[in-house]
């Protein structure tokens, strides 16, 4: 069995080499399609990473009037917590707000000083509400407008990040859509080109195939070289595409402000190296085998 496999693989490499430019064409188109697919993957992955990051910072702060008692606020907290779309509610007391304010403004003694001169705490107690998902803030704010404690609310700080999130969401969805169409298109083209390459291989080997059949070569033995040829196209293309991805990620990572990203693009690439390579190898060999099989079904009469 190993003997047959060895002979077959040697034969496939020879075919690959002898097909010359055809192999180059097949591999290049495959590289483009794999590269597109993986770039798409990287973009949508980092895109949703950014989204998640921003979403975590989003919240609704409800500021209560200064005369509202702590008891009433905790009642409102319990009320909000019972609301199904709310993930968490955090109470920030007047004192805590003052402390935060002070620590945020340590470098500006004038402000702190004037605050002290005021004698009393001018800041309001608040509840910081986080929704389970960003598109639920709308209903949370609608709920607040109808809440039993709406009279106690001084103001609601909401909507600052809403637009950014929506925009990001739209962009990621758009990239996904266009990228998928492009990937499918390129995959289709590479199937066609590999199909054609294998067809020509079958044609140039028709004499050998005829002899093989006459001397009783098993069908597997006749088919294997073509399948292997397809696999070779896929494997070579995915390795090269991985290299291309390495270069392009490294290049763009320099120009991408790491502030926006929770992690560097390049480290994302390194972290997902196995996944990316595996994905490309899987897609590449699948495309190769698939197109070989169509070509064989059409042109290899066995």
């Amino acid at each position, binding site marked *: 069995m190993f003997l047959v496999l060895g002979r077959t693989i040697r034969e496939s490499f020879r075919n690959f080499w002898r097909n010359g430019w055809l192999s180059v064409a097949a591999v290049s188109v495959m590289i483009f399609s794999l590269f597109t697919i993986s770039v798409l993957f990287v973009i949508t992955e980092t895109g949703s990473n950014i989204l998640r990051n921003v979403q975590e910072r989003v919240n609704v702060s409800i500021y209560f009037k200064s005369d509202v008692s702590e008891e009433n606020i905790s009642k409102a907290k319990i009320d909000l917590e019972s609301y199904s779309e709310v993930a968490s509610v955090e109470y920030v007391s007047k004192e805590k707000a003052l402390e935060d304010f002070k620590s945020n403004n340590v470098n500006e003694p004038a402000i702190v000083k004037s605050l002290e001169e005021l004698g009393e705490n001018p800041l309001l107690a608040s509840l910081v509400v986080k929704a389970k998902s960003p598109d639920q803030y709308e209903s949370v704010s609608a709920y607040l407008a109808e809440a039993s404690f709406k009279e106690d609310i001084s103001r609601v700080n909401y909507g600052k990040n809403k637009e950014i999130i929506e925009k990001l969401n739209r962009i990621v969805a758009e990239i996904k859509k266009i990228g998928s169409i492009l990937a499918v298109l390129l995959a289709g083209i590479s199937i066609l080109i590999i199909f054609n390459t294998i067809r020509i291989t079958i044609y140039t080997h028709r004499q050998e195939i005829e002899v093989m059949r*006459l*001397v*009783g070569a098993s*069908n597997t033995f*006749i088919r294997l070289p073509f399948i292997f040829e397809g696999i070779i196209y896929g494997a070579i293309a995915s390795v090269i595409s991985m290299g291309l991805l390495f270069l392009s990620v490294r290049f763009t990572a320099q120009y991408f402000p790491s502030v926006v990203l929770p992690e560097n693009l390049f480290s994302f690439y390194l972290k997902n190296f196995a996944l990316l390579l595996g994905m490309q190898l899987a897609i590449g060999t699948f495309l190769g085998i698939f197109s070989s099989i169509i070509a064989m079904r059409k042109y290899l009469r066995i």
Partner: protein
Amino acid sequence: MEKREEILDEENINQMESGTDEMVEAAEMEERKIDDGVIIKFDNVKKVFGSDFAALEDISLEIQEGEFVSIVGASGAGKSTFLKLIYAEEMPTGGEVYFEGKPLSGISRRKLPFHRRRIGTVFQDFKLLPKKTAFENVAYAMEVSGAPTDEIMEDVPQILDIVGLSDKMEKYPHELSGGEQQKVVMARALIHKPIVIIADEPTGNLDPVASLEIVKLLLKINKLGTTVILASHDREVVNKAAKRVIVLERGRVVCDDARGKYKMC
């Protein structure tokens, strides 16, 4: 209808005759294994190409193990189709072809290669691979069936010696004469130790001297026990063989003589 019965009757008689003929030959040649077993049987076989062109019709005959059968007839008489039905390159439109008692229509595509290894084939156009030497061409037949390398190294020179090419093993087909190329093909056909050799116009591209050598070789192979089926329209070749002759005409068997000469019935 009448005509068909006539043919069938004639065949039955021929069959009996060829049976007795075998017995006589067996007495003459002790080394030859005689088995009364029918190796190939055509049962009312019909082969139609396209929608109306009948290449073969009403073919019913038997070939015994160890027989040497010549199939003669003009071009287009159905000789090649007849042979193709035996190595299952074509399937009959009607009737059934039996090989060693088993119907060939029941053979699965997966088993087909194993059937082909039991049959050696020789053709007019050789079908040698031009980029391989004589040795490699024969070895290739073993390689594709998954034979181990040491077995190949042992068997191939042996078989090339039998056909008389041991000094030309490393030559490429274009460096060999037509007769020598056909001998390489014979060696390739023999490498699997087949029980039947099918030769479709093996001398079609050869000069009379080379043709004679090929026929001698076929007779030698037959003498060693292998059934030989030779299709030819070469009078000399068929007469030299001087064995059973089946004459095909427009897809029908018109004669079947146990010890025949080339003729048109």
